[in-house]
């Protein structure tokens, strides 16, 4: 060594987040023993740094290198750079040791923090100091979630001849996209794009499709995960069932249809929609009389089934599989509009959410695609009047579409849900197309037409005569059976109060309710909004902190169909890379302090 360097280590605490889980004193003790370190200074919580006094200290201690260790040390760097320069040192020699940037953010991160400081003292970025060991990879893959993202990833991986387990919670694959009428900005029929892909999944020999199933446990390590999957009792033999509908006709139990977003009904034994994959019925154990009565009542469907496919006493099945990679594509749920009382959702019958409108305007929906208002209809079974959609109901004359429901709102979700502006424009187009005499108003805060061809789509919708009103609606009120919308037209400088017949709430996207549970099972992180955290926002948007586990689609953050499909294919490529090479990088989390220390020991001469 030419000259022994004199290093000063300054450890600060930002007072927020990661540093709280790091034992700074322990890190300081550790740093004292590192080579070349002559000064270790814990400068406390949110220190006010004065470059001049820092410079004096640096000169006194004859320091020529500074390591700044903190949650986000870049914040303190300028003061040290100036201090070192004032002391006559080379300002290039200020090294940063970021705890939070290198995974020392969780509980018990002190060991990681020591490793990060060690790397900085040696002048090597943590990420380069030690590379995780490679591990062999099991060739099978698990895809969680059977929406368009999961379908795409499964088809890509299976298309390369590799085995895929596709696990879907609902009774069919297809996800939210199967409910949609049209896609934006092309106005293609969503089902025409999705159903062929769904059928391909059903027919692919390399894909084992488990619908009505959930992941219950994950163990093992990257490249070799053991996954427990609970296959809920479908109670109908998937293979034998020919979807003839005889069971459903006799079934006495009527409940809201999930696939129709609650605007129509289904029976307790049902097929989610006619093009479902697998094309087989299933029994809803929560509403089936036979199941809820413990086998004492009903059972009518069993006798009706010519194929003898119905086994009401079937039990859940738990299977364990081994996979090398896991693709998480669990999608989203929509914001519960009932949380914002002033829009009247749940209270006013003709205030509906975006998903309900998708089903209303869909030709396969309960009104055959007619955009109508809800009307009171007598329910003979329950002996009450209910507000329902029916094809013959009166058509609305004024339709209002309200953006940003539950999004960009500090009281609910702070983030932009990204797709609502565009799907709302699509809604407006469908209103103009199907009800040319109706007025359609869109109330937006900012119009976010960010994608390819989206701006052109916006212009197109404007030309169709949709009234785009800048301003968020404050409330929907009803008087004498007529709803009135109150809002501000910001550009027109007016307060609005006018009658509306149908209000569509463009609800935002939210992480699914059990995303926390799944994140716990998989050992992956979620961001502050609850979406699964990607490994690196720019360079690794589909990887996670855990090797061999990837995220695709909305579960990583709101995105539209093209982006979801692109991510799914990208993930498939990464999965295939590890399978084909047979090796995968182990998780960086698996690195211990000893690994890092070992990498700095003088190598034995070859």
């Amino acid at each position, binding site marked *: 060594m030419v000259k022994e360097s004199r290093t000063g280590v300054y450890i600060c605490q930002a007072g927020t987040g990661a540093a709280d889980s790091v034992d700074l004193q322990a890190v300081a003790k550790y740093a004292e023993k590192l080579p070349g370190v002559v000064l270790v200074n814990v400068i406390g919580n949110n220190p006010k740094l004065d470059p001049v006094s820092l410079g004096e200290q640096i000169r006194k201690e004859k320091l020529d290198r500074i390591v700044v260790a903190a949650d986000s040390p870049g914040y303190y760097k300028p003061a040290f750079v100036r201090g070192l320069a004032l002391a006559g040192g080379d300002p290039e020699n200020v090294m940063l040791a970021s705890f939070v940037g290198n995974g020392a953010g969780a509980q018990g991160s002190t060991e990681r923090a020591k490793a990060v400081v060690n790397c900085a003292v040696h002048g090597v970025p943590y990420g380069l100091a030690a590379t995780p060991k490679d591990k062999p990879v099991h060739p099978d893959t698990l895809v969680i979630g059977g929406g368009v993202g999961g379908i795409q990833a499964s088809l890509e991986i299976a298309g390369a001849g590799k085995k895929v387990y596709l696990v879907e919670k609902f009774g069919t694959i297809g996800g939210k996209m199967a409910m949609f009428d049209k896609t934006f900005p092309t106005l293609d029929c969503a089902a025409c794009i999705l159903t062929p892909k769904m059928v391909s999944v059903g027919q692919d020999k390399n894909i084992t499709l488990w619908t009505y199933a959930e992941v219950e446990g994950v163990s093992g390590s990257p490249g070799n995960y053991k996954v427990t999957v609970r296959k809920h009792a479908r109670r109908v033999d998937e293979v034998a069932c020919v979807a003839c509908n005889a069971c459903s006709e006799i079934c006495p139990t009527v409940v809201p249809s999930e696939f129709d977003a609650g605007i129509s009904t289904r029976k307790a034994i049902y097929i989610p929609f006619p093009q479902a994959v697998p094309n087989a019925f299933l029994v809803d154990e929560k509403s089936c009389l036979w199941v809820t009565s413990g086998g004492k009542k009903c059972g009518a469907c069993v006798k009706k089934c010519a194929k003898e496919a119905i086994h009401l006493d079937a039990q859940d099945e738990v299977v364990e599989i081994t996979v090398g990679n896991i693709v998480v594509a669990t999608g989203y749920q929509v914001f519960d509009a009932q949380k914002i009382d*002033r829009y009247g959702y749940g209270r006013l019958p003709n205030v509906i959410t975006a998903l309900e409108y998708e089903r209303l305007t869909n030709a396969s929906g309960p009104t055959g695609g007619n955009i109508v208002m809800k009307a009171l209809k007598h329910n003979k079974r329950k002996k009450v009047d209910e507000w329902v959609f029916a094809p013959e109901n009166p058509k609305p004359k004024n339709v209002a579409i309200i953006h*940003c429901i539950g999004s*960009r*709102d*500090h*009281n*609910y979700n702070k983030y932009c849900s990204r797709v609502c502006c565009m799907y709302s424009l699509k809604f407006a187009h469908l209103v*103009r*197309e199907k009800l*040319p*005499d109706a*007025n359609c*108003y869109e109330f937006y*805060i*900012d119009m976010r037409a960010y994608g390819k061809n989206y701006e052109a789509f916006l212009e197109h919708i404007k030309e*169709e*005569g949709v*009234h785009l*009103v*800048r*301003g*968020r*609606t*404050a*409330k929907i009120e009803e008087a004498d059976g007529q709803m009135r919308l*109150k*809002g*501000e*037209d*910001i550009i*027109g*400088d*007016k*307060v*609005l*109060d*006018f009658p509306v017949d149908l209000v569509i709430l463009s609800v935002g996207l939210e992480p699914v309710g059990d995303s926390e549970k799944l994140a716990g099972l998989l050992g992956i992180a979620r961001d502050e909004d609850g979406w699964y955290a990607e490994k690196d926002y720019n360079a690794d948007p589909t990887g996670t902190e855990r090797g061999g586990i990837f995220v695709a689609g909305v579960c990583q953050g709101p995105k539209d169909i093209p982006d979801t499909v692109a991510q799914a294919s990208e993930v498939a490529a990464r999965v295939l890379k590890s399978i084909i090479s047979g090796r995968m990088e182990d998780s960086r989390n698996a690195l211990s302090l000893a690994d890092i220390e070992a990498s700095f020991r003088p190598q034995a001469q070859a």
Partner: protein
Amino acid sequence: MAVRANPNLLEELKHYGADDVTKCYHCGNCSATCPLSKEPFIFPRKSMRYLQMGLGDKLKGNLEPWLCYYCGECSDECPREAEPGETMMSMRRWLTAKYDITGISKLFYESWVAEAGAIMLVALLTGIGFYWFGMTKGGGDFGIYAGPNAFLPAHTEGNFFGLGWNVHTFDWIMGAVLGGLLVTNCLRMWWFTTGSRKDMKVPLGTYIKHAFLLPWHFITQKRYAECDKKKPWIIHLILMLSYLTLLILIMLFLHHMHAPETHWVHIFGYASTIGLLGTAAYALNGRLNKTETHYKHSHESDLIFLFLLLYVGTTGILQHFAYRFLGNEILANFMYIIHMMGVVPMLVLEVPFSKWAHLAYRPYAMYLAAVQADVIAEREGTKVPALAPQKQMTA
């Protein structure tokens, strides 16, 4: 006329309590939520915009802050936590400073130390002055509280430099000075908001037609009652009516208060004292514990004002008790001076220069708003419907 933007406006408004204005992304939720926001005065979003853009002159000529009674609904529902309600409040403080011709108001709002210091100075001078007045007017007997020979006589043909002076003489002088300041500032307010505007040519008849609105809004605060929340209006009305009652009683019937037998003045006086102290304590508790949205943010001036009200109310009733129930006239006279050391700074400083100025500006703004609305309606002829006539499209 060119509009000039003042890049330091936001920074300036921070002294008046506007902290979160930049968070606003102009969704219009606040203006639409507000039950008071009606054409042609739509607020608070537009005023937030003026602030963000630094349009100080526009803001100076803006009546809208005074049309808001701060029920807090806009702040509750704001998706950005931009606190539109508090921003309107801070604009009222800023406007008070702008209307004030002396510049004292600006000094007070920008430095609570100056306000508190001025209050203490005036209090000290008042104490010395009243003591000196009591000593010099004749007998100067600190042991006499009521009657013509009282240390500080309420109702007498006293002998003070040969003139019939008593404590009310000070009331009237003070009233004249305060009234003069308020009228001057109101004239400035008129000039900023109406007089200087080329598009606001108001016929004299319109001014006269709406004149009744001044006393109407002053006494009833009816507009406050139009807020969805009614409680703040009731609290404010009780506080205001209690104060007004006490003011009238003290100005005109003070000598009856000193009477040993129960007089109707006593009934009104006690009821108003309870009303004043109760509501002021309620408001102070609300502000200290942030119990309601409109109490969440407090400028120093808000607290100083409430403190003064409570001080004046408490010392006022204590001197009365000291005389009427304890019969301790020395204590009563002592409390009298202590009381006046609160009353005088409160009136002299708070009414023209600080929070209390709204007693004039708010009803006056509502009057001017009615006048302006008439002019705008006249100019635009038939009123344009909320949304322009809807285009009919063929499929």
